[in-house]
């Protein structure tokens, strides 16, 4: 066991009126100050074994970073216990304590000491750091004269000189370009092979999928789930029902362009996106199945209607369109409440937000009800390929 967290609670007290001076406090003695209490972590418990890589995921404000800071001993728990064994290195921010007015070499010294390296190690490795960061020509330049990219590179190459037993990583990978991120991944892989335990907070689900053996899902400070990464990611992606369905209808209408028209002989009352568990949501993992359920209402009998959908990317690029007519389906008539499903076997999108137009119209194209880009869902990546869509292919040599 390297990390043990037992029934951890953390509350922050935010005063309505922030008093930061003695004067304000004296004046404030007359009026009581009201505090808002935020409970950021509620009864979180888990253990991480040696050599394990654990992911921590959750929406913004779910308490991920607070949890990491408590483990790092930066914040103290309100209740509960945190035990950490071995030497810990937090990567909560790169370049902690960098001084813009000192030279590259001097900054390596300061930062490496802050990260817990001994003077002898720093002496031995300073050259490696400069080499790895590609800053040989600038070693006596003041830090403020380097580009921010160079500074990040310098910070990263210094930070990875540490030999921790436990590594805490908070979204560090979010900065930097593709090449830098790849470098980060390589280094974390190396750490993993050396048996370093890693706690990894990230929004990048594909990175979590690739790295983490187990994952902790936080939601509103509560421990929603803890277990194997695949299972937890599914829970995260498909776990947000009610709120998700609501938000799919909350597309703010564009001011000038009308986004719904038709003679209302058939109205589309609702559209749901059903995941592989049959639950409605608007987040999907790529390559998973999806079912679009279109609920309609026809006050009187409408013969031979056509239902159709059109798919748009986030930038309103027209991606795909189909309808029952094109697929050779004839619907004799509709009357009253009902629904029709469009089954998608495998979502080919890689990642991003997609908008859907749903319509019911006549064979001649006269709309009964046309909801223009009124519904949306999100696709979260699974693999490493880039782009909008998966193209089934393979390399042959």
């Amino acid at each position: 066991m390297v990390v043990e967290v037992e029934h951890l609670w953390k509350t922050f007290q935010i005063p309505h009126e922030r008093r930061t001076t003695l004067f304000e406090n004296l004046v404030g003695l007359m009026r009581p100050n009201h505090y808002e209490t935020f409970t950021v972590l509620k009864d979180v418990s888990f253990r991480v074994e040696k050599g394990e890589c654990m992911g921590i995921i959750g929406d913004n404000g779910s308490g991920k970073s607070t949890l990491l800071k408590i483990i790092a001993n930066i914040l103290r728990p309100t209740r509960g216990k945190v035990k950490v064994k071995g030497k810990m290195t937090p990567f909560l921010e790169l370049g902690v304590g960098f001084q813009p007015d000192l030279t590259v070499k001097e900054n390596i010294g300061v930062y490496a000491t802050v990260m817990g390296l001994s003077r002898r190690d720093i002496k031995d490795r300073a050259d490696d750091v400069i080499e790895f960061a590609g800053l040989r020509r600038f070693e006596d330049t003041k830090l403020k004269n380097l580009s921010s990219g160079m500074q990040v590179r310098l910070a990263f190459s210094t930070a990875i000189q540490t030999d921790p037993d436990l590594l805490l990583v908070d979204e560090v990978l979010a900065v930097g370009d593709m090449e830098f991120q790849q470098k980060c991944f390589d280094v974390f892989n190396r750490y993993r092979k050396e048996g370093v335990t890693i706690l990894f907070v990230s929004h990048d689900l594909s990175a979590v999928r690739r790295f983490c053996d187990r994952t902790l899902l936080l939601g509103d400070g509560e421990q929603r789930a803890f277990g194997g990464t695949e299972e937890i990611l599914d829970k995260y992606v498909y776990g947000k029902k009610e709120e998700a369905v609501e938000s799919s209808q909350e597309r703010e209408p564009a001011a000038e362009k009308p986004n719904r028209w038709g003679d209302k002989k058939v109205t589309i009352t609702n559209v749901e996106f059903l995941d592989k568990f049959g639950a409605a949501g608007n987040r999907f993992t790529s390559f998973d199945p999806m079912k679009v359920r279109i609920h309609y209402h026809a006050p009187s009998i409408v013969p031979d209607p056509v239902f159709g959908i059109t798919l748009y990317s986030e930038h309103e690029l027209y991606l795909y369109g189909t309808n029952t007519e094109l697929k050779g389906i004839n619907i004799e008539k509709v009357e009253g409440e009902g629904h029709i499903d469009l089954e998608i076997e495998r979502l080919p999108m890689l990642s991003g937000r997609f908008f859907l137009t749903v319509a019911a119209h006549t064979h001649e194209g006269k709309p009964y009800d046309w909801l223009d880009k009124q519904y949306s869902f999100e696709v979260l990546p699974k693999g490493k390929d880039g782009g909008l869509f998966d193209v089934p292919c393979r390399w042959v040599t």
Partner: protein
Amino acid sequence: MLTATHLRELSGYRELILRLAWSDFKLRYKSSALGFFWSLLEPLLMLLVLYLVFTNLMRIQVEHYQLFLLLGIILWNFLDRGTSLSIGSITGKPSLVQKIYFPRDILVISTCIMALMMTALEFVVFVIFMAIFRVMPGWPIAFFPLLVALEFFLILGLSLALSALNIYFRDVQFIWRVVVQVGFFATPILYPITIFPEKIRWIVMLNPMAQIIIMMRNCILYGTPPEVLSLAYVALSTLALLFVGYVIFDRLEPRFAEAI
């Protein structure tokens, strides 16, 4: 708390303490062309003004008055600088408090050490002045390191309390400026203690800084070793201040990262 475990933890961080002190020290002199000469110029200019005023207008009759004055200014500067820089040592480095952990008093300790380094430079100038005025210290100069150490811990105790309080009450730094200004005149720096009537001298001597400055002058300039009673008083009050400083610091420390 200043317990054995904490001391052991601090000793594990001694490289960090020294590195922070040294880099801050370098930083202070890096941006100006004349470098550390500026820091020497400041007490010297002050000495010049005060010397002219006090010898000509006030007609103070003290043996080696230039050195008497310079020594007082240097020792008071040490306190002034140490505490003033320490007050901002935690609020001024939020990333070191919020993004990484090490015992927070390290920030204060390293700032006090930096102040000590700056004072050491001023003592170099003082030695040159002693040579110019042909004053040779006798054996009591052996007490010099002890007295400097006592003042250092006195400053550390004050700094711990002030820096922790300043996180919650940001005007502590301004209030402290006033205290230091008043202290400068209430401490026998410009004048000998003998200007006070015998009856009220003890009040002035309650101030441990007054004791330190007087003992230091006696040791270096007049060749008389410190009285045991004075030394004991300073040692005890330093210990008490250090203790109180640590208690306050320790009390407030857990919420630093949130309140900063």
